């Protein structure tokens, strides 16, 4: 699907939605309202939005530990997502998942995943389900360059390719594996080159450029829907924040971060793209940002007003206890 002015506006707005949601979540972490680990996606918005702009509601996504962006881009509601980060009863997962397990199964958002590479098998399995049922749903497996070192990635891609499953593997290569730079622990620079091992196309794109991501993933999604099998897409990107709270960022200097923020911000890059095409007036820009900020502030109010789950809830949802075997 060609990038239209209308879709471009949505993409622009969706990137702001992630950016503002996360910066607010980070502020709420400072206030003690958000607790636990908070892996911020800021800087990588073009990947999630570029990918999910190609998807239907019934397509599947599986995420990573850094997945607020994926969920929001697929359409997760900000109120309930924020409430989940607060550990509240109205959270997407009733306060039982938190930042690393945000999920909304009504939108086939199968969830963030706290295990690095943990989503690759399940994501490929949803594609297997689509093949068996002969639907044309597509599955997206997001993973990081750190996950590329793990065995389950190899096993999932091997079977994804073997059975030509409708899945797109999207590697967000931000060059950082928690507190370690990729080049110190990986021999191969580009994760896309791994695709050759599975006999599938491998494409490397500029993950700060949402148009590049959108177009490459669009082709991969079409290919998957046609039943021609998986594609591995590497989006070269960068995270603006540390790995999670407590990261002293000893692996990079502040100049590097400032340089990326100043010159490689995906929102700034896309704003220039739209301005060039006269797709975004200053007023529209203000309106988008204003409306998004208001929605984030509503989400915080919603999360704040929501109750903490009743303590009895700690003991529910382990198994479906209502189910009994009946012949």
């Amino acid at each position, binding site marked *: 699907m060609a990038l239209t002015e209308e879709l471009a506006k949505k993409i622009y707005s969706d990137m702001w939605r992630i950016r503002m949601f996360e910066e607010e979540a980070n502020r709420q972490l400072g206030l003690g309202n958000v607790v636990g680990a908070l892996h911020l996606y800021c800087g990588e918005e073009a990947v999630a939005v570029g990918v999910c702009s190609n998807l239907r509601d019934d397509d599947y996504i599986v995420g990573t530990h850094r997945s607020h962006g994926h969920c929001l881009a697929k359409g997760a509601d900000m109120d309930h997502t924020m409430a989940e980060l607060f550990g509240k009863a109205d959270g997407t997962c009733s306060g039982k*998942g938190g930042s690393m397990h945000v999920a909304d*199964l009504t939108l086939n958002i199968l969830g963030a995943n706290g295990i690095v590479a943990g989503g690759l098998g*399940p994501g490929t399995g949803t*594609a*297997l389900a689509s093949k068996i049922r002969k639907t044309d749903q597509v599955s997206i497996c997001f993973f990081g360059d750190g996950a590329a070192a793990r065995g*389950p990635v190899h*096993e999932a891609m091997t079977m994804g390719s073997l059975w030509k499953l409708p899945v797109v593997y999207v590697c967000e290569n931000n060059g950082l594996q928690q507190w370690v730079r990729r080049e110190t622990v990986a021999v191969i620079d580009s994760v896309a080159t791994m695709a050759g091992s599975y006999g599938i196309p491998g494409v490397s794109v500029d993950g700060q450029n949402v148009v590049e991501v959108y177009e490459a993933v669009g082709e991969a999604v079409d290919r998957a829907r046609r039943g021609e099998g998986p594609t591995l897409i590497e989006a070269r990107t960068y995270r603006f924040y540390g790995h999670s709270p407590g990261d002293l960022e000893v692996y990079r200097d502040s100049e590097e971060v400032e340089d990326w923020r100043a010159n490689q911000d995906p929102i700034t890059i896309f704003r220039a793209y739209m301005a060039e095409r006269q797709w975004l007036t200053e007023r529209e820009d203000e309106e988008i940002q204003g409306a998004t900020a208001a929605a984030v502030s509503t989400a915080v109010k919603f999360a704040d007003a929501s109750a903490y789950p009743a303590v009895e809830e700690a003991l529910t949802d382990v198994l479906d206890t209502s*189910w009994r*075997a*009946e012949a």
Partner: protein
Amino acid sequence: MSTITIRDALHDAIHEEMARDESVFVIGEDVIAQGGPYTITEGVAEKYPDRIFQTPIAEAGIVGLGVGAALAGMRPVVEIMYLDFITCAMDEVVNQAAKMRYMTGGQASVPIVIRLPCGLGRYVAAQHSQINESWFMHVPGLQVVVPSTPKDAKGLLKTAIRSPDPVIFFEYKRLYTMEGEVPDDEYLIPFGEADVKREGEDATVVAIGGMVGKTLEAGTLLEDDGYDIEVIDPRTLSPLDTDTICESVRKTGRVVVCEEDTSFAGTGAEIAAMIGENCFKDLKAPVTRVGMPHVPMPFAPSLADSVVPQVGNVVDAVRRVMA
């Protein structure tokens, strides 16, 4: 009633459930070639060619794909060739399958069955003979099923396939050829209901999987001593039917818990602790366990046979609690 083997019972259960429900499919290594390593999936490829997936040797991938397919509403029946290989997929079992419902606040259902051929079969040493039921009992969100007869195997596997939550299904390799009567009509066996395999008054013997048959043999031998034992087969270790066990213990006051697996920190330890908590005042003797010593399975048949509990070990243990 028909007399069939446990292998046939499992085979029939899979075929019946695949006929009943289009979302059931089979995935595993060698499941088409020779109908699977134990021929359990024989004939599936011919009848349902689109619902059987013979995989590369990739246990993490196999279980991982199963979890995803289950999340998407399918009902995968996964075969792991030897239980021992499930270690390669423990993340998928423990962190993904087991916790998905909970972590999503009840949104997700993972109706996956993972079949694990286990225990001493041919003499194939320490990496092809384990059981390790207690590993899985320890994890909330998993159901652990251990049939010991053809009837139980069929009814429990059918229930497992219909369950909305993950099931770890143990198949003792040496029991595949065991024969027994199976009802001709459709039936299911619910989880969490132990079966009293032999009624008795003097001692309760809780026997698991491969130990059930041996314990029944021991029961016959012990009649010569004048001891009348009650044999309880929990059939599912999680959920565990504590009521049936405790009721028997209250009657007899003497307990032996028998498992083929290593005793230390094992299934019998959990059952013994549960009995201690609930029936302490009813006990006339300390709860005794029969199990394998804390060693890996040796290769030499003479050694393997010496560590796997036999009928004689059960007889001795009952005599001890009766003394």
